[in-house]
């Protein structure tokens, strides 16, 4: 009976239901967007790493995030190659600070990330890169990330432009994507990389300083013992990380150390609070309008438990009513943002479940606040 009453209370007026539902939808979509941006940020920050063809990775032990240049000596990569169990050790060079790219379509200048590696190495798993990387053996050529931001200028292969004042030719495209910190990506050979970023005053080659060491091991079962062994052999200027550790390392930076993770976390909380307030208002009005009826129920012997459970059911129904359209709308908005902003907004199964739980908690919380008024009604007032 309480389910029926809860159901009827909600659905009695279609107009009111529509207003209530849109309130919940608003709050839930707001939360979806905030969490979506946050996850997109975290996902995009580790996207490049996820395409690296390694089981173990070397980075400078003082590195706190990938974006900042903090290289370690190439020597360590060679050393790692000599350890039994390590089949390949490839250096990956990254320049984010000194690289200035001239948009070939508009001639405007922008910062860009340049990934340099030996075209004979299989540093990336991306098939398009594998297919085209040998073209990079030709000096002063680059592959351009076609999911770079528009202002980078996604020119077709064959286009010539300038990178850090040097004439360069686009010989192909690959797909990686921009993130919050990087607007676009280029891939080039280690030799071109050297010519581009060599410090004229430095005695050593730019290639002596590696950003990431990509290691392949012969036995995937023995990754962890090998990791310990490598760490011991290579000393403490490098950190040896497994793939999950490597991804977690970068995620952690964005989640904890950068304000961006915090801002979107806060946005989610705001969405939740707004949702509680909207939901409370809806339930409170609904219950207040029927106060004499509830007092009557108490007068004929229904106890507070019944009323509590009824409001609980009503809030849960409300959360379902609100969640379903909110999920649909968020799906569309995610698609739209992915297309327009080039951010990968993923609607994962776990996000769908987590958001549903948040919505239910939001409604139940407001329900338990709203029910207090009903509980305090005096049954003697109905006569």
């Amino acid at each position, binding site marked *: *009976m309480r389910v*029926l*009453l809860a159901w*009827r*209370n909600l*659905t*009695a007026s279609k107009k009111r239901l529509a207003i209530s539902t849109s309130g919940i939808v608003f709050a839930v979509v707001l939360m979806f967007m905030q969490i979506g941006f946050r996850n997109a940020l975290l996902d995009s920050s580790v996207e490049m790493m996820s395409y690296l063809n390694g089981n173990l990775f070397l980075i400078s032990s003082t590195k706190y995030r990938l974006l900042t240049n903090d290289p370690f000596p190439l020597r360590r990569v060679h050393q790692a190659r000599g350890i039994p169990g390590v089949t390949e050790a490839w250096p990956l060079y990254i320049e984010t600070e000194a690289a200035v790219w001239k948009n070939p379509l508009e001639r405007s200048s922008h910062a860009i990330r340049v990934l340099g590696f030996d075209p004979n190495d299989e540093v990336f798993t991306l098939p398009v890169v594998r297919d085209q990387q040998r073209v990079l053996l030709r000096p002063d050529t680059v592959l351009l990330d076609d999911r770079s931001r528009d202002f980078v200028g996604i020119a077709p292969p064959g286009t010539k432009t300038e990178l850090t004042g040097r004439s360069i030719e686009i010989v192909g495209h690959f797909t990686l994507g921009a993130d919050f910190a990087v607007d676009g990506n280029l891939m080039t050979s280690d030799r071109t990389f050297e010519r581009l970023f060599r410090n004229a005053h430095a005695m050593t080659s730019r290639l002596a300083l590696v950003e990431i060491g990509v290691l392949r091991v012969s036995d995937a079962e023995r990754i962890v013992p090998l990791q310990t062994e490598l760490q011991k052999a290579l000393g403490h200027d490098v950190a040896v990380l497994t793939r999950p550790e490597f991804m977690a390392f970068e995620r952690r930076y964005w989640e904890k150390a950068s304000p961006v993770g915090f801002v979107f976390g806060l946005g989610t909380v705001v969405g939740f609070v707004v949702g509680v307030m909207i939901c409370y208002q809806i339930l409170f009005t609904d219950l207040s309008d*029927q106060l*004499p*009826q509830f*007092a*009557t*129920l*108490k*007068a*004929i*012997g*229904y*106890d507070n438990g019944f009323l509590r459970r009824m409001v609980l059911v009503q809030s849960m129904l409300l959360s379902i009513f609100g969640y379903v359209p909110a999920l649909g709308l968020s799906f569309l908005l995610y698609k739209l943002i992915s297309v327009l902003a080039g951010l990968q907004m993923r609607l994962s199964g776990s996000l769908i479940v987590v958001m549903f739980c948040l919505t239910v908690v939001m409604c139940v919380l407001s329900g338990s606040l709203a029910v207090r008024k009903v509980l305090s009604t005096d*049954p*003697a007032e*109905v*006569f």
Partner: protein
Amino acid sequence: MNVVTSSSQPNPGVAKAVKAADELVVNVQGLNHYFGEGENRKQVLFNNTLQVGPGELVIMTGPSGSGKTTLLTLVGALRSSQEGSNCVLGKELKGLGAKQLNEVRRQIGFIFQMHNLFDSLTAFENVKMSMELHGHKSRDMRREIIKILSRLGLGERIYYKPRQLSGGQRQRVAFTTSLGSFPAVSDSV
């Protein structure tokens, strides 16, 4: 405040006087009631006495503000009794807590001046709402509710919502909701 009692027994007034206390459905002795606190404290009931036996129909009259509703809410276990004895269905209500009063209420039928039907529920569902408290079997209950509503001329409107019923029809639905339990206590019908 006058109390007029009608009963199937001959000469009710006399019969009542000799009736044993444990046969009475309502036995109010020396009941006082006050509203307000401190300086605003105002006595509303003064040493009231009321005895009602089984099967009796009691009509209470009195000027507005004389305390009829107050007495009914006390007898109906809707309010805590303050002074005197208020014995209903063989149970002393004075000194009972909210939970125990609630238990007693389940055994009493009420018809409220404001009928207080849920607008979102049909006539049938409104009656069911109160019947369910008394642990009737669902199938019996359904048959019973339909029977009573039909007898009250609401046969064709069992599945109507209160808004679609006339004032009188609503009042009859409200009356039916009170039949889940007996005796009935009614205020200003």
